[in-house]
Each structure stands twice: as structure tokens, then as C-alpha cells.
């Protein structure tokens, strides 16, 4: 769709808004609807829209397939690492109290980190799935 000027310009205008909305959903999930999963899906949608309009090659140059694999692994690792923090300090798995001196702050930080891990994994998995569906024949 490289010749549709209107589409290209509108997309360029919309995408920052989509990403911003995704980030809002991610980081404001404690106070209103949303959280890591929804944010991940929305951010991935924004990126996929960009890919649809400007072509996969441009998308690859921003975020390569290997990068998506790494990022989704790191998201899962982040979640499990937060869980293991509890075990290291002699508490239970996923016990966030251990993260900071104050229990409530620790819970908040734990939820924040966990949601970040979810968001990272979900957005990258969605992008990876989109790549896989549309890039057959080339090396994944």
C-alpha cells in the first residue's frame, strides 16, 4: 500500500496515539481498566498496523524476528525472576512483600514488574505471530 498517500499520513498520525494509549493501559492498570495483557495487544496492534501500511521490510528493520524472540523470553524471565525474589529471601514464590522494605510498596512494585513482563511477552508474541503468518518462505 505504498501509493495511498492519505492512508500513510493518517497512519502516521494514528500510530503515536495507539502506542500512547497502550502505554496508558499498561501503566494506569492499577487505577482503571487494563493491564499488561491488554496493553501488549494494543501496542502490538499499533505496530502491526504500521507493518500493514509500510510493508514488512520496514517493520523488520525496526524489530527483527530474533529481537521479538529475545524480548518475549525476557518478559517471561522477568515474571519468573520476580517470583524467585521471594524464594531467595526465604519467603514464598511470588511473594512481593520481599521486594521493598514496606509491604504495601513491595506489592505495588511486584504488580508493576509482573504486568510489565506480561506486556512485553504478549506484545512480542503477537508481533511474532503476525510476522510468521505473513512471512512464509523466508527464514524465521
Amino acid at each position, binding site marked *: 500500500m505504498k501509493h495511498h498517500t492519505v492512508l500513510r499520513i493518517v497512519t502516521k498520525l494514528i500510530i503515536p496515539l495507539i502506542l500512547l494509549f497502550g502505554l496508558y493501559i499498561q501503566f494506569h492498570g492499577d487505577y482503571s481498566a487494563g493491564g499488561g495483557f491488554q496493553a501488549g495487544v494494543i501496542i502490538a496492534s499499533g505496530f502491526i498496523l504500521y507493518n500493514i501500511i509500510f510493508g514488512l521490510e520496514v517493520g523488520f528493520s525496526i524489530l527483527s524476528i530474533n529481537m521479538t524472540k529475545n524480548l518475549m523470553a525476557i518478559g517471561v524471565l522477568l515474571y519468573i525472576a520476580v517470583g524467585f525474589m521471594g524464594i531467595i529471601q526465604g519467603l514464598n514464590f511470588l511473594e512481593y512483600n520481599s521486594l521493598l522494605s514496606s509491604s504495601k510498596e513491595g506489592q505495588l512494585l511486584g504488580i508493576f514488574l509482573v504486568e510489565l513482563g506480561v506486556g512485553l511477552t504478549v506484545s512480542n508474541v503477537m508481533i511474532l*505471530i503476525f510476522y*510468521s503468518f505473513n512471512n*512464509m518462505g523466508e527464514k524465521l
Partner: protein
Amino acid sequence: MLYVLNMTLFLIGLFIIVRESNLIKKVIGLNIFQSSVFIFYILISKVEGGVPPIISADQSIYSNPLPHVLILTAIVVSIATTSLALALIIRIKDKYGTIEEDDIDLG
């Protein structure tokens, strides 16, 4: 009575999966099937006169947040299943030349 409508949806979904031969329609049937169960969970979570479970000072009755959490997880499972199924469909088309289950001939 709402549950009866809900179960109608449940059965329609099930019957699309069982009866249709086209694999994409089967996957859509699976989505309908799963959605009906999601609606069931959310139906029982509603509290009369309640509001969404975001705590604020001027509210005292909230709908039950636990089924919401469960369904969030179930939705994730459902999208994972869907994407896996669609990937398999692309390969099936590649290998057998058709996505009609009845037409696939294993010889």
C-alpha cells in the same frame, strides 16, 4: 432464561465444530463456543446495583472481580488456541491443497 440463551450459543458453537467441514469455520465455531462460557462466568459475577470493581470512596457494592480475572486468563488461552489452529490451517492448505476436512484424502 438468560442462561438458556447462553446455552443455545454454547450448543451452536459445539455443533459448528462438530458438523462443519471447513476448518476456518470450525475455528470460528470454537471461538463462539468459548465465548459462551465467558459470558456464563460474567453473568454469575454481576451483583445487583453493583459497579465495576474499582474501589472508590463513594461506593460500597461492587461486582465480583474473581470471575473477571478467570475469564481474562481464559481469553488468553482462547487467542493462543486460535492462533495455533490458524497456523496449522495454513500448513494443511499447503500440504493437502484444501481446508475442507471431508475432502482431505490420506490415501
